[in-house]
């Protein structure tokens, strides 16, 4: 009997026409494109889940960070005023960068753009001066900024920039510099992740001072010193301004708190960074003391909170009274969001334990009682040195919760929420703050305040923008190529008097235009896969354990299906592993995989020189993004060094938080092994290098001596024992 192929061939030779041939080709081609599209989506998902997983990690570590900050940062009792004394800072004669004088003129601001385009750096004195003037200006402004199209003919709204100066320059180039006829609103998240956050801030603040009526800035969730610690701004400032960085960070912290929370155009279009909740209260928002909201990080307040609960006797809002925990149990991936709407048992264990925390009801259905157990964002403290953080402005033990708590939520909601397609409103467990709001919430808001639509940012979109909720919500995102060259476009939106949104898209990297879709996708995909490889490698031991569970007969083989299950159960990324299999598993005979050799291949990819089998190092490697932040906090005087003792203390805390079993001896050994030049101090390079973190930007890392090998030889330091 002829195989299917044969008879098809026969039919073709006799009945083929151009029509049929074309149809075949088209069919084949469309399938090819569909597979490309799938790869693109998978890549996107990889980046997102790794990022979100990182964010959850972050939430989990937050109480540890808070504790560190409280105990390691010197008392900021003199937060009274900013004795900036920038005037005493000398600018050397050989300084060729831009110079500013106040009051600023338009050409100063333009000169700044040009100077930064030429990669010049603004001297610390001018930075401080500018920030000082900025703060003076912002203090007089209201929480909600009102703009009218009567004065400027058009208003351009830009979304997240995240330190990508190229995009800002591109926008000014394509759309024109700010002017009285050309108003701009920048909708938050100017900083972090990209490498030129400082420059962006300088430009934005300068234009704001020059055109106060036409140039506005909304606060985003990244305009927040706690977030900056981890996501890059702090590092960038300290790197660029070694002497005065600390001062700059201090005043920046304050400036961020004074930014607008929202902008209203013609009383019809509301612009804010994240989103809204189902209890929007613009009147309250306009009245509250925005300066008090130092950071909108979600806070764990176990010990304090529980105690407060007991005092208040608020059974309803206490942990364990049937409400669900605020933070997702560790490791729940984004993909499983929907299933979390049922209540999860609240584990309020000892302080510092993962999962313990102030409870905030998490509802799928009706959100009554969402405010049941308020968890106020961190606010300015009354400066009690060494005391456990009093996280709400002026809340004393035993006092009833003041009104101020509820308005903090308004701010958190505005900066962190995301729209969703489903109806309703539920806690945004992925971000750890704000909520997911459905179409009817938007509708409710628009009706209540007689608005036409909402513009927000906060989420990256492949096309740089996205409408949802029946075109009532527009997300605008201005950082193009956010993950990698070719990964997404940026966009900005223009509003004229008719308030019809007109969107302009771009991609600030010229390279991408010349690549075909296929090439664009493979480059981005490569980058995503690299990140994924790293994650897999970091969990090698756990993976081996899981694989063995699926291999009861000890054949050394597991099915690909078992592989997918095992990987998901270890990594918790919620990724479609079967779709990714071709890129992650080199070859497999039939449907089985030799897992040991697969893991070995993984190690070969990642390994620079050493045998990193120890569980401790793997854990550290997995928490790599946090290590830098930890270093920066521990290095409280921003000297660039931490003492061995500080390191040990920090490490003990960290490991108890993360439930890592590690002996004192191990920590001592680790500390000693890290101090490469034996001066009793550890600088950040030693810190990072010791954990074999090679920053992507520097490729010289490989040529340096392998630290641990050297140490093992010289100091006789023992490695932590294998699990």
């Amino acid at each position, binding site marked *: 009997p002829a195989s*299917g*192929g044969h008879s*098809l*061939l026969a039919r*073709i030779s006799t009945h*083929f*026409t*151009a*029509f*049929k*041939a*074309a*149809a*075949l*080709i*088209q*069919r*084949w*081609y*469309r*399938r*090819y*494109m*569909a*597979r490309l*599209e*799938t790869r693109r*989506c*998978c890549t996107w*998902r990889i980046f997102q889940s790794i990022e979100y997983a990182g964010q959850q990690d972050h939430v989990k570590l937050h109480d540890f960070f808070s504790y560190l900050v409280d105990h390691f940062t010197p008392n900021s009792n003199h937060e009274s005023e900013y004795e900036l004394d920038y005037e005493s800072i000398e600018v050397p004669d050989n300084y060729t960068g831009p110079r500013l004088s106040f009051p600023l003129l338009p050409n100063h601001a333009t000169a700044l753009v040009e100077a930064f385009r030429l990669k010049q750096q603004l001297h610390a004195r001018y930075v401080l001066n500018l920030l000082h003037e900025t703060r003076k200006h912002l203090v007089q402004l209201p929480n909600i900024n009102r703009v009218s199209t009567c004065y400027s003919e058009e208003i351009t709204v830009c979304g997240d920039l995240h330190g990508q100066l190229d995009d800002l320059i591109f926008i000014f180039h394509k759309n024109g510099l700010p002017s009285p006829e050309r108003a701009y609103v920048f909708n938050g998240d100017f900083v972090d992740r990209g490498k030129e956050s400082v420059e962006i801030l300088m430009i934005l603040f300068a234009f704001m001072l020059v055109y106060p009526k036409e140039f506005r800035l909304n606060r985003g969730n990244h305009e927040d010193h706690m977030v900056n610690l981890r996501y890059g701004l702090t590092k960038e400032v300290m790197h660029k301004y070694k002497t005065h960085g600390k001062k700059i960070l201090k005043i920046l912290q304050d400036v961020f708190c004074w930014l607008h929370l929202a902008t209203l155009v013609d009383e019809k279009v509301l612009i804010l960074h994240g989103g809204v909740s189902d209890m929007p209260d613009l009147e309250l928002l306009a009245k509250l003391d925005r300066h008090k909201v130092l950071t909108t990080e979600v806070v764990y307040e176990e010990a304090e909170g529980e105690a407060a609960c007991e005092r208040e006797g608020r059974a309803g809002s206490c942990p364990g009274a049937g409400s669900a925990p605020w933070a997702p149990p560790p490791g729940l991936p*984004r*993909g*499983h*969001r*929907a299933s979390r709407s049922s209540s999860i048992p609240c584990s309020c264990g000892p302080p510092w334990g993962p999962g313990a925390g102030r409870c905030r009801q998490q509802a799928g259905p009706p959100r009554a009682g969402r405010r049941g157990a308020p968890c106020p964002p961190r606010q300015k403290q009354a400066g009690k040195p060494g005391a456990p953080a009093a996280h709400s402005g002026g809340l004393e033990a035993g006092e009833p919760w003041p009104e101020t708590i509820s308005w903090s939520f308004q701010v958190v909601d505005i900066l962190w929420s995301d729209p*969703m*397609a*489903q109806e309703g409103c539920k806690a945004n467990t992925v971000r750890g703050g704000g909520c997911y709001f459905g179409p009817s919430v938007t509708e409710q808001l628009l009706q209540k305040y007689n608005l036409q639509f909402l513009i927000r940012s906060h989420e990256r979109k492949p096309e740089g923008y996205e409408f949802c909720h029946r075109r009532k919500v527009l997300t605008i995102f201005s950082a193009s190529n956010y993950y990698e060259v070719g990964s997404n476009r940026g966009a900005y939106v223009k509003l004229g008097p008719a308030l019809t949104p007109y969107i302009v898209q771009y991609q600030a990297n010229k390279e991408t235009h010349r690549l*075909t*879709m*296929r090439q664009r996708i493979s480059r981005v995909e490569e980058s995503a896969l690299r990140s994924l490889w790293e994650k897999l490698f970091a969990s090698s031991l756990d993976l081996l354990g899981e694989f063995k569970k699926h291999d009861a007969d000890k054949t050394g083989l597991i099915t690909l*299906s078992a592989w*997918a299950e095992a990987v998901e159960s270890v990594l918790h990324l*919620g990724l*479609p*592993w*079967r*779709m990714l299999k*071709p890129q992650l598993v080199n070859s497999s005979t039939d449907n089985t995989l030799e897992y040991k050799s697969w893991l070995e291949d993984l190690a070969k990819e990642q390994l620079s020189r050493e045998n990193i089998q120890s569980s401790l190092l793997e854990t550290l490697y997995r928490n790599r993004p946090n290590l830098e932040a930890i270093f920066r906090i521990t290095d409280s005087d921003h000297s660039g060094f931490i003492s061995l003792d500080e390191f040990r203390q920090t490490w003990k805390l960290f490991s108890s938080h993360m439930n890592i079993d590690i002996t004192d001896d191990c920590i001592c050994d680790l500390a000693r092994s890290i101090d490469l030049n034996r001066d009793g101090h550890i600088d950040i390079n030693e810190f990072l290098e010791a954990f074999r973190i090679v920053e992507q930007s520097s490729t010289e890392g490989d040529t340096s001596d392998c630290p641990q090998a050297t140490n093992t030889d010289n100091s006789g330091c023992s490695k932590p024992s294998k699990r």
Partner: protein
Amino acid sequence: MWRINLWEGTELVVAEFHKKIKDAFEVFDHEANNTVDVREIRTIIRSLGCCPSEGELHDLIVEIEEEEPTGYIRFEKFLPVMTKVLLEKRYRPIPEDILLRSFEVLDPSKRGFLTKEELIKYMTEEGEPFSQEEMEEMLSAAIDPESNSIRYKDYIAMMVVDDG
């Protein structure tokens, strides 16, 4: 005995298909609520190894959509239909030699290539015509800019390797 094994075998196969389908669906389920935009369903079906024509897709979608189309496809409806498609091995991919033969039909004088104009003409006027976007995308990868033509044998070889 062999009857029991057969039954078990089918169950396993179906279970495996279910997982495959779920994974593919999840890639496009942007809100993690077990629905995808109907426009993405074509991509999903194709990503599962099927190679249907536009017409066949249209019929399939009619089966999968709600009685009153919402613009969304629910996983509960998608799963059984797609499982059946996979079990019945419908819409098999086109083998390389057939593809080559199709190009050759469009190149009766056997030059080994098609000019840009010819390709455009066939793809946009015959069969299930390409949209302008599809045409541009194909041209960008297929056309050799120097000769302004597509050497289809090389093109196929390149695409197939890429497909992995």
